[in-house]
């Protein structure tokens, strides 16, 4: 049931929730049965959350809740009351793609793109847990996400490229510990300093 749920009839029970979505607090009243995926898309305008199966297999709706990846179609909005939620919209800063997004672009790790938000978020969690994953760790880390277009090869390449970029950015940044927030909002200056000289402006070209 991937769709808007704005109007509520009187007969339907509601609860108030306050959720931090990409750093901004959202307080609203929702039906207890409202899925987090629909909450983010319809109540918060975060339509980069894609809904592919609504039974927790495809992973297109993957978002981070308090730093952990969750399938937002299997989570109710009321369950994340008081939590920090990050969607794919929370990654790019000032128009610059996050290194993970940029790596997906450069490695042609997306075609139709419907799975991409989920893969990017799953990759983010993976690289925070394991900044230098080998191929097997990548396969394990992304095993809960389905892509129907790419055959995964270029996604593996993108994860490796992103890992190298993030490690590079961390070094350039003078040994910052690489916590979630630093990685999440990699300063745009860092992107310009990348050793390969690309500008990171991605698909605007």
């Amino acid at each position, binding site marked *: *049931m991937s769709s808007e749920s704005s109007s509520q009839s009187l007969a339907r029970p509601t609860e108030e929730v306050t959720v931090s979505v990409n750093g901004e607090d959202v307080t609203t009243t929702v039906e207890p049965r409202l899925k987090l995926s629909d909450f983010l898309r319809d109540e918060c305008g975060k339509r980069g959350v894609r809904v592919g199966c609504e039974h927790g297999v495809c992973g297109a709706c993957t978002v981070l809740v308090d730093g952990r990846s969750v399938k937002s179609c299997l989570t109710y909005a009321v369950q994340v009351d008081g939590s920090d939620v990050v969607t794919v919209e929370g990654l790019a800063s000032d128009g610059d793609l996050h290194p993970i997004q940029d790596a997906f672009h*450069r490695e042609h790790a*997306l*075609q*139709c793109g419907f799975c991409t938000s989920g893969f990017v978020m799953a990759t983010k969690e993976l690289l925070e847990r394991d900044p230098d994953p080998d191929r097997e760790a990548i396969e394990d880390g992304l095993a809960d996400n389905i892509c*129907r*277009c790419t*055959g995964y090869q270029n996604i593996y390449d993108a994860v490796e490229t992103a890992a190298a970029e993030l490690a590079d950015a961390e070094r350039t940044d003078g040994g910052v510990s690489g916590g979630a927030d630093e990685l999440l909002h990699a300063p745009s200056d860092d992107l310009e300093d990348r050793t390969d000289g690309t500008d990171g402006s991605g698909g*605007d070209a």
Partner: protein
Amino acid sequence: MSEAGVSKDVGVEDDAESEGQSFVGSGLERVEDHRILTGEAEYIHDIAPEGAVHMALARSVHPHAELVDVDTSAAEDHPDCLLTLTADDLKDDYEPMPCGLEGFEEWSLADDRVRFVGEPVVAVVASDRYAAEDLVDLVEIEYEQLDPVTDVQEATEGDTLVHEHAGTNVPDSETLEFGAVDDAFENADNVVETDCEWGRISGVPLETAGVVAQYDTDHDSFHIDSNIQLHTLVDDTVYEPLDYPPEKVNLEVPPDVGGSFGTKIAIHRYCTLSAIASQQLDGTPVKFVEDRVENLQGGDMHCSDREYTVRLAFDDDGTIQGLDTYFADDFGAFPHYPVNQVLKPLSAVTNAYDIDAVRYGYDLVLTNKTAQTAYRGFGVDPHLYALETAVDEAARELGIDPTDFRRVNLIQPDQMPYRLPTHNIYDSGDYPAALDRIEELVDEAEVCEGGLLDPDVVEAKREEGKYRGVSYSVHIEPGVSGSDWTDRQRTETDALEEREREDVDELPEHFRIQLEGDGTVRAFLATDTSGQGHQTLVSQLLADSLGVLPSDIEVDYLPSVEAPTEYGSAASRMAVMLSGATEGAAEKLRENCRQLAAEEVFGCGVEDVAYRDGAVERVDGSERVPLAELADLDAGRNQRLTRVSYDYDHPATKIDDFDEALTSKYPVYPTAAFAANAPIVEVDVTTGEVEILKFYTLRDCGTMLNPTIVEGQAHGGIAQGVGAALMEEFQYDGEGQPKAITLFDYLLPSTKNMPDIEMEHTETPSPFTETGAKGTGEGGMLDAPASVASAITAALEDFDVVADQIPMTPHRVRRRVRDAQADD
């Protein structure tokens, strides 16, 4: 090796600008990506007009039943209910949906009888989807169950009819003969007969079908946003049931569609119902997005489900003299368009082999399952699988190496262009060289110490019950369908002999470009897209043709009312059709720009004006006018010179050798991309599990317009082929209930199933196309299933087991090995 020939040219635009190099042929990064990666892309589920309401569908829980009573009163009594619709509500003002064969027209909601689990019976509309689904729960449907027809055997031998009025469950069949088939089978030294089965599969894109429809009360017309595929070809499937003329029903497809692979061609039911609901609600926009369970069980989107019998006639030296192939295809409850996928294999009927005598027969069979639609490969994938299975059996019969057997029969390069007995033509390629190369690659890398096929390792693994095998084979990908062969099954075939070449409906590719005041070149495709990167491709092609940068080009799509009826983005067409269409349109624009500058700026003759490097100038180079300025100059003119449209004729219609296929309505696919594959598999004979250790492939799709995109298409196609070979299947139980209605049951390849792909490319340009490109949207899905199955057969040679049913699930492998051991 996987990087060979595929450069992901970061910063290619800067290089090209400075050096004047071509963008075509570069791995230009995709222009589509940024909006997708940032979450800004607009898919159908993002389209939400103010005040939109939501539809949900009550669907049949039985495969075959009379509808005794459909009671919507409880739903209507619910305070959230805005509308309910049943078949009876449709009959006064609307029409049934057209079907692939005449006589099977159906109402978009089941009328009197349901014929598959998941068939929509009632539509309900509420303010939001949650409420709409509440209403579905309140709909009461009383059924009287009928015997279901659940397989081909029951359909052809039993008494139950899926459609009583038709008098048969086999509404379409044909047997075609080309060459002296009986002679070949009588005279050949050997004949083998192989039975094999191809499981019911589909594309299962990550995005399901969706629609937002709005009726315009002022103009008595409809605007329908939908992720339907081929919206400028199949718009009749929407306007006909609405009983409106085409110009009153505007279909528009979002620039971002979450995959289709053919499966969204036949989603007109949803478009129709949403539009009717909006009309009944006085123009309130109505939205419907299929959920995954609906999609899998009743989404009209299953594909080929075939039982094959293939006979091969061949001599003792291995030469194949004749091919005789028959299949029954379980089409489900309705023979929806595209029924013609039973015919497409004729375009590559002998695969890469030189065989003169071919018999090709099929039965299109109806059962109580959801209907078929198109899926990447369009019916050729099972054909290649069946043919290659028979080839393996023939080699085994002769006791010779299957690679040698294949090599003996390959079409030779000096036979190109090669005319198939079925009248399609392969354009170019050196198949023996491709086979030699893939064998050499595997030999060097794997049949050696430390390699996957190191004889010592292979032997040691056998001791553990793990059998490794590899199969080398060459496969054809027929590309760029065109013309009107697609309606052969609705044609009186006897009359085709009289048909003249001029009677052929050629369906050219329509394309438009216009200059904007800011210097942007806006391009319009007359079709839709679903992830293939057409915006990037058009940017590359036009940048070269117009001497501008890809970033100067914006690519958009025409809605159905503004576009002519054309074939569109299917059948591996767009690389070739856009190559011609962009060049034709660009040439027209360049001429017009010269005329405009001559008349409005220079006051000279056209012959004194040249178009150079994205601007017009006097031939002596003394004055120069940029494109942006021309757009402004043109703005006031009656006849706009900076807006051009162009219709690119399908390549086959310009080559006389295709005339026979065109007039006889045989499939016409004028490009033959090809692949030589060598998957290395390991079969655990204890568990039945098959692991593909590595997938070697050498691919050739002519000139690569964008090597990065070509590689991506191959990767993705191979992944789908691996799914088809090992995992994916829409099974039904004996009562007609679908067993795969979630993604827990219909298994898609994940990171845990996909092997490493070692890919190499060669480029043999097509002599038939503008750029030398060949169609390559389907390749891996066409050839990987046959290749993987053949490798399994090779691995299990000692057991004399043949991979004669796919997907080769562990259960099926185990059963075959067990049976083989019992026989010994």
